[in-house]
């Protein structure tokens, strides 16, 4: 511990603060405005700087690291383009409530507003996509600001915080003292749920005949998986999860109904439509979940537990809101419910739906399909891997066919739907995960959006297993074009322009394979999963025209599911 009254430079204070916050990794890229920080970084030994190839990659890596570890992801980039390149990653973290702190260089304070070289008003640009942001205008405020940034990012509903660091602030000196407490009178997230509301919720659940737990990412963020499991098991409750909630409850458990919503299972959506009490836990009634809102769980008494009051009554008006930390509320709810519920009739009904329409795909034509590959990956890793995806069809198939056993195992861009999220996020996850395999399932479109990070994954010898599901199309867009846009495949066919993924991977220094045959999937997967001395890439050339089913067309009620290819005109 340094002498608290020692005079330090802004750059020294910066790293002293990161040390106090126990930061292990910074994902960054140097540049003019942050040269002083990089000069200091040269001698810093208590954290590791990961050099990315594009600042967007740094932001997604920080997200991947944060999602997989539950810690805060840290980014350091320069001013101007360095800062603006992080914007998509910040917006992604904002939508999916990922705690990251992004430090951006800035031109010297006397130059701000002068259109100086590499100047961008990044605080202004990121105001609507950060939980909060700061421009540090005096080195005396630096330590307190960093403390606040980490506190705000990780508490309440987590989110990204940006701290803009002008060059002169980093260079000037002042006495350093790291504040022990954060004083923010305008920010006091409600942690404990209201007692009477919890009691009331317990009474309602006790009387339920057809209850359903609708579980979102909040359960994972609050580390509430044990409480959820206990609560669901002891009361025999069916559980359906959102895209971000997958992993909060074991996917192979008979009480799991898998994912709900647009590409959710038939039985999960039927359960939502027919339940009499819907308990939403850390989920936000997103439009991809609800479909047409005024028909969503229309007969159910809705209980909504969320730490963010703005989520309550935003999309769907609920009957009983409980604002608080899901983990704590779950524990208290469980304590109120002491007799197992009699739900035989409800379970019979649910099991009937499971029989009528399980997840299914064409298996008998000998063609290589994404669903088959993902199902194989799930079996071979026993649902224990950390699986990162990009955005599109492969993402939905992963959500459907990979049976996640653990929380913090399904890392995907949900709210923003950011293509290019996968590769950098898997790199971040690999730094956070030592004991489980990290798998990237990407598509040929999204993979090319941050493909430069192959250099990063190779340089740090990260054993990420990269599976590129190549259907030579922007598959999800193609699916909508086929179903709703008169089969006009406008600019979604990549077959003429896709690179040779094996050659690209090899040029970066990866081990790489490719196959278009169902016959050697087992062998290739085994080899890829066993290879741990660095990253490996497998390209699976799959059928081009597959579509993700079930599907609820946008704006339709989730009772109007397409479970297989149908003429959309019949779906009215």
């Amino acid at each position, binding site marked *: 511990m340094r002498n608290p009254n020692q005079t330090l430079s802004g750059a020294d204070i910066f790293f002293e603060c990161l040390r106090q916050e126990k930061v292990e990794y910074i994902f960054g890229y140097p540049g003019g405005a942050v040269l002083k920080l990089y000069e200091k970084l040269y001698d810093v030994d208590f954290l590791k700087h990961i050099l990315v190839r594009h600042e967007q990659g740094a932001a997604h890596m920080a997200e991947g690291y944060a999602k997989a570890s539950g810690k805060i992801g840290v980014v350091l980039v320069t001013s101007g383009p360095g800062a603006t390149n992080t914007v998509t990653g910040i917006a992604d973290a904002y939508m999916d409530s990922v705690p990251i702190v992004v430090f951006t260089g800035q031109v010297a304070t006397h130059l701000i507003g002068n259109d100086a070289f590499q100047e961008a008003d990044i605080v202004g640009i990121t105001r*609507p996509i950060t939980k909060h942001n700061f421009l540090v205008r005096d080195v005396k405020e630096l330590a307190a600001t960093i403390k606040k940034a980490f506190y705000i990012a990780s508490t309440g509903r987590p989110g990204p915080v940006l701290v803009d660091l002008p060059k002169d602030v980093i260079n000037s000196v002042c006495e350093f003292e790291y504040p022990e407490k954060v004083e923010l*009178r*305008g*920010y006091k997230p409600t942690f404990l749920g209201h007692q009477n509301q919890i009691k009331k919720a317990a009474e309602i659940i006790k009387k339920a005949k057809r209850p359903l737990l609708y579980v979102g990412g909040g359960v994972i963020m609050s580390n509430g998986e044990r409480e959820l499991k206990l609560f669901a098991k002891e009361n025999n409750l069916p559980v359906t999860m959102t895209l971000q909630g997958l992993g909060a409850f074991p996917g192979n458990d008979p009480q799991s109904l898998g994912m709900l919503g647009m590409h959710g299972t038939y039985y999960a959506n039927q359960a939502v439509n027919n339940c009499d009490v819907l308990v939403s836990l850390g989920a936000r009634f997103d439009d991809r979940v609800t479909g047409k809102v005024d028909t969503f769980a229309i007969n159910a008494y809705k209980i909504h537990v969320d730490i963010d009051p703005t989520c309550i009554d935003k999309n769907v008006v609920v009957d009983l809101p409980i604002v608080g930390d899901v983990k704590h509320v779950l524990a208290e709810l469980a304590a109120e419910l002491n007799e197992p519920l009699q739900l035989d009739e409800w379970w019979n009904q649910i099991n009937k739906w499971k029989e009528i329409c399980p997840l299914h795909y064409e298996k008998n034509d000998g063609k290589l399909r994404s669903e088959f590959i993902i199902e194989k990956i799930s079996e071979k890793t026993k649902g224990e891997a950390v699986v990162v995806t990009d955005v599109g069809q492969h993402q939905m198939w992963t959500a459907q066919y990979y049976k996640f056993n653990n929380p913090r195992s399904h890392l995907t861009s949900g709210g923003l739907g950011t293509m290019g999220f996968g590769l950098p996020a898997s790199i971040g996850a690999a730094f956070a995960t030592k004991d489980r395999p990290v798998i990237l399932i990407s598509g040929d479109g999204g993979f090319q959006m941050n493909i430069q990070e192959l250099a990063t994954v190779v340089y740090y010898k990260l054993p990420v297993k990269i599976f590129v599901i190549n259907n030579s199309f922007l598959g999800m867009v193609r699916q909508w074009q086929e179903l709703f846009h008169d089969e006009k495949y406008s600019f979604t066919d990549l077959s003429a322009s896709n690179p040779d993924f094996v050659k690209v991977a090899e040029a970066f220094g990866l081990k790489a394979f490719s196959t278009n045959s169902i016959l050697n999937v087992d062998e290739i997967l085994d080899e890829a999963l066993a290879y741990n001395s660095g990253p490996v890439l497998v390209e699976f050339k799959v059928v081009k025209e597959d579509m993700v089913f079930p599907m609820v067309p946008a704006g339709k009620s989730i009772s109007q599911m397409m479970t297989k290819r149908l003429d959309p005109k019949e779906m009215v």
Partner: protein
Amino acid sequence: MKHTISVLVENQFGAFNRVATMFSGKGFNIHSISIGETETPEVSRMTIVTEGEDKIMEQVVKQLNRLIDTIKVIDLTGQDRVERELALITVFYQKGTRAEIISVNDIFRGNVVDINNKTITLEITGPPSKIDAVVNVLEPYGIKEMARSGTVALKRGEQLKIDKNIVTQQ
């Protein structure tokens, strides 16, 4: 329905912007917004007049509360409150109309704050509806330009019970 919302924010760089950005980002209406110091220099008070269904207004208040720089949000709608707006209105006058305009000003208890050989400038204070009324009356004379401050509002203080006996004795 119109709502008057009083927001105490940290008197900090960007606090006003955050509120304005939130309103535009969420697609909420703003009729007027005014900001100024309070009795505590580190705290500013914003008075926002906005409009929308109850559900939207509930979101407005929640979203305001969610901002880190926001200390307190009070929806004054339906509460006993004092609401004032200030307007500076410059009106053209002719030979015969100067006295008329000044009499309008007197009726509305305004102040004449500037005059030259063509125009006269009035300062009118009151609830927004009163300003609207003045504007209405002055319009036929030809309003050259106008500046309105937007509404500022405060909740009325708790009404103390007055001891009638003391009043009579006095």
